[in-house]
């Protein structure tokens, strides 16, 4: 293959990305409204991290962080360890921590190509001076799981998804 079509393709792709930035949805991704309902536990507000886990069980991408004070991020141990030194800018996908009995609704952006491909969604939770749950909830990233109600094992009572109506 000559180089020219490659460059042309790249240009096309760049233009596409550039224009689609105005509607702000990456090509090939879907948005899911996600509700995290907490149990009535006693204690401080919980920090919850939603991550995409690949088939090898490794962290691939941080989808959402509930909790804005970086001081407490080390409490979400495994995620914090996997993040390592390279701290990606997560300010766009950060919301407030959530208290016992409360719920939090947020929109997750998920790559269509990863659905039904042995990827997993992990909900990891930590509360100050209380047990930490690596897998408070972990579900296979399948169309089926994304339309069901999934029960948590720690501070999360359940998580529900619904595809957003836009686009």
């Amino acid at each position, binding site marked *: 293959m000559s180089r020219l079509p490659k460059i042309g393709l790249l240009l096309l792709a760049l233009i596409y990305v550039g224009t689609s930035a105005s509607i*702000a949805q990456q090509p090939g991704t879907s948005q899911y*409204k996600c509700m995290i309902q907490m149990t009535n536990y006693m204690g401080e507000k919980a920090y919850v991290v939603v991550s995409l886990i690949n088939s090898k069980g490794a962290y691939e991408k941080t989808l959402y962080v509930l909790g*804005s004070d970086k001081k407490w991020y080390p409490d979400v141990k495994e995620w914090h360890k996997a993040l390592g030194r390279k701290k990606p800018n997560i300010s766009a996908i950060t919301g407030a921590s959530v208290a016992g*009995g409360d719920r939090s609704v*947020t*929109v997750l952006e998920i790559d269509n190509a990863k659905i039904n491909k042995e990827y997993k969604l992990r909900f990891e939770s930590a509360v100050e001076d209380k047990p930490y749950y690596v897998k408070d909830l972990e579900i296979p990233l399948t169309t089926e799981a994304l339309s069901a109600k999934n029960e948590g094992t720690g501070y999360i009572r359940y998580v529900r998804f619904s595809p957003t109506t836009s686009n």
Partner: protein
Amino acid sequence: MTISVWRYSHLALAVSSFLLLTLASVTGIILAFEPVSQKLQPYRADNVGQLTLAQTLPVLKKGYEELTELSVDANQFVQLRGTDANGKNLTAYVDPRTGSILGTPTPQSEFFQWVTALHRSLFLHEAGRFFVGLTAFLLLLITVSGTMLIIQRQRGVKRFFTRIVRDNFAQYYHVVLGRLSLIPIIVIALSGTYLSLARFNLVGEATIVSPTIDLDALQSKPERKPADFAVFQNTRLVDVQSIEFPFSDDVEDYYTLKLKDRELTINQLTGEILSEKPYPTAVLLTSLSLDLHTGRGSLIWALILAVASGNILFFIYSGFAITWKRLANRAKNKYTATESRFIILVGSENGSTFRFAQLVHQHLLKQGKKAYLTDLNNYGVFPEAEHLLVLTATYGLGEAPTNARRFAALVEKYPQPQSVRYSVVGFGSHAYPDFCQFAFDVNQLLAKQAWAAPLVDIHTVNDRSPEEFSLWADAWSQQANLPIPISADLLQAPKRRFDKLTVTGNTRTALPDGTFLIRMRGSRRRNVASGDWLAIYPANDHRERLYSIGVLENELQLSVRLHPGGLGSGFLHELTPGEAIRARIVSNASFHFPKKAPVVIMIANGTGIAPFLGMISQNRQQTPCHLYCGFRQRTSLAMYGDFLEESRAAKKLTNLHIAYSREGDKQYVSDLLIRDADFITNVLMMNGVVMICGSLAMQKDVLDILDSLCQNKLGNAVSYYQAHGQLLMDCY
């Protein structure tokens, strides 16, 4: 004993908590500015007071793709969470009337996060929270014990806010600021304690448990629009804490409406209330405590909290300054009680009397005398004692200071085996009615003991006056034949700013009682009012003499009696017009003419008339003034006669009553008061003011009469009127 219990607990609590208290106060001051900075943000929509949910929700729903949550914070900023037209997460402050975006919430700044964590938990998690909570509780106890100390110091709850006698900077402001910031500090301590208790789940059910909804019983008919829901029509936006919108259109998803006092769930199709649950009291109290403790939602309260926290820091400083001083005054003895010839016994509540006792002690030691200094409570048998010196203050209503409470009992129990010469010096302040009462009691008690013989009569020292103390020291030295040159130590001339005054007139005197008037004018304009004092320095040294000022025609007029050999009076008598002197005007605001009084009664004897002359001369608003004055003979009045007649004609003086003590009926001014008893009680009843100026002897008589009048006819002690600024005194 109670005083010392409160004082020791106040100190012990302060010592045990001051480090954490300092930290909490400093961080608290910083944190007070967080609500202040929030308040200044322009995210508050106006006129939302009457807006109901039925009005605002349709507007908001129209403007956004989807709403998940709406919340109204303490600043009444309305925050919306949901998704925008692109399906992106959206969090924004909105105007609830139009739905337009006012701004984006920023997360709490890292600095405030850091300070908040330090304030709450010292970065020590649970353990830190416990210690901070304990500190809040200790602060509460400190406030309570401090309040008890003020009540005792002021002699009663009713006098809580009356004037405080100024001992020194730290002590004075410790008490003054303590009274002012009492309420905010109690609020801080109480709310802080409560928040900690709530944090450790010690106040009952403190969390809100979500209700369980019977999903099978949910109705989906009749369907209504949210604007038609009765509950939305009846709920104002300002009463809302948050609204959680239904997650999907399914009937099993519902609205959760969190109001200030209860939580409701609402069927999203029919508007039916599915559950209604009032918050537990503990939750409401927690919310109230947070409001009060953080000042969120109120700019003014937040600033008050900042000032109160600053005061706590000052209390820590001044409290330790007071304690340090008190400890430094503790006696260190070189000789034992059993071998000493001179026994110095001290009764002191706050330690200031100890300083005088130590001076005497040191002088005796310096001369090789065996002297022993101790508390009155440590009285016992002193086998070698020749001299007993008692220096004591008075506390409360003429009671013994804490370290002298047991003295009377001990004297009865331990008579001295040999004869001992004694001398008593009382320390006190004329600002209190029971001046040196306890010293008089001690003197009386010793006089009754067979082994005790007085060396010099009892002396009193007003407001720690060095002059009065050296008077005693001189008298004692001469009798004991032992020089104790106290004066040199105490009477160092203070560095002060002086005023230059030019004499404009001097009547001199040819009168038998030697009274004369002298007038002066200041070189520059100064705020001086009748009733202030003029301090003069006749010998240009430490010796100061005070005279009451009457301001007439913009000049200072003093009324002076010439004492044979008198330092001040002799100096003033020799001044001629045109001569300039160095003097100081001392403000005496507690003896100024009352601004708002229906009637003023002025009581004077002799030269005590001086300030009243000025006040009458300046009585342009013609407040009814009744002057009662006592003189020795008719001629004494002569120099005031014309002025008083003119004033009466000008309605500046309503009535004049004069008593002559050496002529005619030989009356005293107190006799006139007995005659006009009904009039005087009426004046006090209608909030009139009585002012007394003159000799202490006259003051004592007048106070006795007033006290019995007040007790019998008005049912109050005379101190009640003193406390209410209805009885003003300046006597010497």
